[in-house]
């Protein structure tokens, strides 16, 4: 029974997409009903796999049409769900379910909602299929569906100029990525005569010849386009900004992660190349550059969603750096950060959407003072902002800590100064992340209310609900990260490292051994250093103590006064004696000293982000060439 769940979850979503397209016109209720119902069932099906896969350590395999391997060759399409795939599957279903709920409230004013839900279900199904499949060509097909659904959704609000432009860029650049993947898959098929990932893994066996290196380089470059690693990141910024916010959330929570999943699957399982220091260095350098460029570009933005888009790029840099270390701890940290990124970035996109719904703009220079109008959104935003900046006790702190520890441990044991530089970059990027979220906090939620927005009110409950769930998840995964580690991360990381099981489950017991495949040793990482729960208790205790001290001192203390209603100069903002007026220190006004000192850097960056598709395409091709060249030189 249970082995049908993964394929049912994927197929149900595809079915839902067609049903919405056919019957969606009848009534909005049927349309929304089909979309939410299929999303919910698929969520339940995937969550039901936690027990067997994560806890009992099973690997679920499923041959489509019961087409099992013939004479030792896997011809049919196989689904294979190990803990790594399920880990990403859980992220995917959680994200698209919350996004679906959110869209119910968010899309109030849009036309063509039927198209939206059709594409939304296609996108969800393709990403879910991508992370659950065990077939390389099936993976490519899912990438294609994902890319084209994303392109169409980017252009969904096509009344904005930016939407079509972004969709066009996405289309061209995404197709380059897909083509590279396809070329790689074709080369692999030529060498291995199979498309099943388990079998490819055992045939290649971590030994490379010229064809497989070429294939490896092409596939990794193609997946880099999907995960938006600098310099492949260029379509991301526009697409995230132009797409409806519920879709931006899916982009950063799922589409992005699909690329990351693909990279992990390729380098750890299919090609098993992570023991090579050249590949480690390559990935860590790309990761470090990605996080640095992402965050510095984010600091310069003055659009809420665009800023978040560049942060998505930057945080993926952390993930790539961590998984590029090739150690158990690094992989663990990378997975944890990928998960946290899905949670907090999704949350932040949702708050951006709430601001957009309430005020009609995401321009950081025009907003301000919304904290009194939108208290729930503000609290959720602050949770997300503190999480992404890595302040304790939120989840970002736990995962970033693991990342730092993993990189610096690697640096210490290998003595490679490049890794130490990556540690420094990671720590500095964290502060810059904090800075850019302080900028958003000041420019959107605090400060003074723009007179244009004096009538703004909080978003409806259906939009608050996903935000609150995500905020609670952010806090919970930060506080109980030991449980997360035990039930989700450790199985997933272990699954990525124990290739033998993966091959055997698919191709039959003993197949891997006969092909001479051995696992990378899994060492459980120890994280006894920080027990957030105890510290939370302490935090509460001190808070109480301070409160008691203040309360008992009430007789002696000065009163706390608040403005009653009528205007009173006593409560007015201090303007050196002048009459109070609207004067908000907005997004572009902040961090002046920093921007002055970095003028040269930003000039170069501005030149590089020219907005011309041919430029961007050339970056992608050049970077792919570099990756392939490095592989040719170092991996033979």
């Amino acid at each position, binding site marked *: 029974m249970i082995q049908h769940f993964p394929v049912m979850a994927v197929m149900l979503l595809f079915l839902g997409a067609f049903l919405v397209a056919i019957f969606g016109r009848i009534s909005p209720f049927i349309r929304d009903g089909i979309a939410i119902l299929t999303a919910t069932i698929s969520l339940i099906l995937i969550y039901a796999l936690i027990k067997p896969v994560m806890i009992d350590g099973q690997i679920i395999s499923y041959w489509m049409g019961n087409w099992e391997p013939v004479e030792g060759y896997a011809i049919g399409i196989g689904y294979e769900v190990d803990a790594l795939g399920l880990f990403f599957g859980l992220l995917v279903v959680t994200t698209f379910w919350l996004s679906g709920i959110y869209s119910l409230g968010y899309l109030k004013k849009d036309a063509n909602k039927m198209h939206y839900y059709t594409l939304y279900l296609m996108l969800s199904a393709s990403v879910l299929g991508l992370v659950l499949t065990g077939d390389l060509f099936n993976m490519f097909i899912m990438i294609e569906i994902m890319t084209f659904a994303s392109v169409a959704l980017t252009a969904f609000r096509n009344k904005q100029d930016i939407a079509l432009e972004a969709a066009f860029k996405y289309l061209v650049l995404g197709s380059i990525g897909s083509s590279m993947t396809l070329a790689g898959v074709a080369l692999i098929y030529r060498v291995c005569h199979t498309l099943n990932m388990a079998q490819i893994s055992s045939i290649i066996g971590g030994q490379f010849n010229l064809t497989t290196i070429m294939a490896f380089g092409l596939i990794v470059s193609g997946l880099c386009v999907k995960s938006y690693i600098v310099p492949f990141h260029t379509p991301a910024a526009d697409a995230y900004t132009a797409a409806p916010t519920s879709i931006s959330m899916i982009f950063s929570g799922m589409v992005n992660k699909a690329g990351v999943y693909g990279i992990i699957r390729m380098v750890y399982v299919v090609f098993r190349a992570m023991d090579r220091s050249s590949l480690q260095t390559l990935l860590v350098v790309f990761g470090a550059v990605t996080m640095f460029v992402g965050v510095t570009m984010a600091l310069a933005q003055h659009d809420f969603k665009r800023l978040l888009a560049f942060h998505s790029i930057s945080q993926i840099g952390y993930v790539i750096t961590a998984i590029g270390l090739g150690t158990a701890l690094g992989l663990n940290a990378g997975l944890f950060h990928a998960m946290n990124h899905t949670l907090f970035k999704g949350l932040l996109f949702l708050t951006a959407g709430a601001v957009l719904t309430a005020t009609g703009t995401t321009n950081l220079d025009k907003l301000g003072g919304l904290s009194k109008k939108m208290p729930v959104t503000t609290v959720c935003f602050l949770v997300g902002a503190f999480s992404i900046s890595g302040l304790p006790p939120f989840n970002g702190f736990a995962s970033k800590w693991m990342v730092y520890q993993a990189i610096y441990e690697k640096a210490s044991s290998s003595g490679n100064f490049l890794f130490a530089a990556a540690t420094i970059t990671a720590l500095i990027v964290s502060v810059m992340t904090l800075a850019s979220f302080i900028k958003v906090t000041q420019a959107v939620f605090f400060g003074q209310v723009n007179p244009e927005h004096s009538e703004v009110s909080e978003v409806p409950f259906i939009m608050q609900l996903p935000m609150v769930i995500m905020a609670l998840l952010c806090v919970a995964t930060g506080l109980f990260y030991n449980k997360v580690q035990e039930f989700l991360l450790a199985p997933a990381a272990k699954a990525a490292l124990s290739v033998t099981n993966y091959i055997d489950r698919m191709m039959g017991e003993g197949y891997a051994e006969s092909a001479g495949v051995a696992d990378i040793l899994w060492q459980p990482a120890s994280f006894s250093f920080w027990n957030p729960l105890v510290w939370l208790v302490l935090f509460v*205790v*001190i808070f109480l103590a301070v409160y008691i001290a203040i309360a008992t001192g009430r007789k002696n203390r000065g009163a706390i006064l608040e403005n009653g209603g009528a205007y009173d100069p006593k409560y007015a903002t201090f303007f050196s004696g002048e009459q109070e007026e609207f004067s908000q220190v907005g997004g572009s006004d902040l961090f002046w000293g920093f921007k002055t000192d970095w003028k040269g850097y930003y000039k170069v960056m501005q030149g590089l982000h020219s907005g011309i598709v041919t430029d961007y395409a050339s970056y992608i091709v050049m970077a792919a060439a570099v990756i392939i060249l490095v592989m040719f030189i170092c991996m033979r």
Partner: protein
Amino acid sequence: MLNITNILMLLFFVLVFPGALFTSAVGLWLAGVDRKVVARMQHRIGPPIRQPLYDFLKLLGKETIIPHAANKTVYLGAPIVGFISLAMIMLFIPIMGFTAVSGSADLIVILYLITIPGVALIVGGSSSGSPYAGIGISREMVTMMAYELPFVLVLLAVARKVGGGALVFSMQDIAAWQAANGSLLFHWSMIPAALAMLLVVPAEVGTQPFDVAEAETEICEGPLVEYSGAPLGLFKLNTAMKMFVMSGLFTALFLGGLGTGIVALDALIFVLICTLVVILCISTIHAVTARLKIEHLFKFYWTFVAGLALLSLILVWCGL
């Protein structure tokens, strides 16, 4: 593990020594010494050393006005959060041999906990809704970015020096290593890092010439512009505590291992060394310099100070 004695011990650690009470008492003492020393250097008599305490108590007795543009919860909660995190940092810093809480990776906890008072100040100031505060938080954040790079480099250099090939982030191990091999300040490859750290301390605390964020003569005390009464007093207390935490961190990183083994005596020595550090790197610089501009501050930290720290890191990396 969590029996009643342990909880009581923990509470004592958190509330009295070396937590809230001890930290604030020593912080106020250091702030008083700082003001007195600066006054003497400028040929003034200066306020009594108890002066910061008087300031704090007086502010408790004043009215607290919440401006109508402010978000009340954040406005009142921010200083308390800053206070709590500062009291908690002292639990991780070994007072010579004695640590209240030990772990295996304390340096990064400290690095992050130390940013929280700054973030509290920024968020609190931002929530008050004043444009002066807006400019103030912008400068505070740039200052934070400025000193964070050298700070991180110093911490990594120390971790590498103590750990060698292995990974050591634990303050306790650092203290133990120094007890065995002599204080880090006396290893010549660490001297540039110590100098860099001495320059990080005043920026973190926010004293002249690095008080661009709270420049009272140009932007009306920046983030604190709308604060009055008890919350303002708490912020002033936080600044004083930061002085102790930062000088204590310097002492623990570079002059650890000088303890005698008796906790009370160790604490006394620790406070004395902290006082010296404060006089050296806060008061002296304060007395002889004028306030920097924010872009100069940033450049100074990312070139000169970070260069010193990087020099140390490279030396240590080469095994010196």
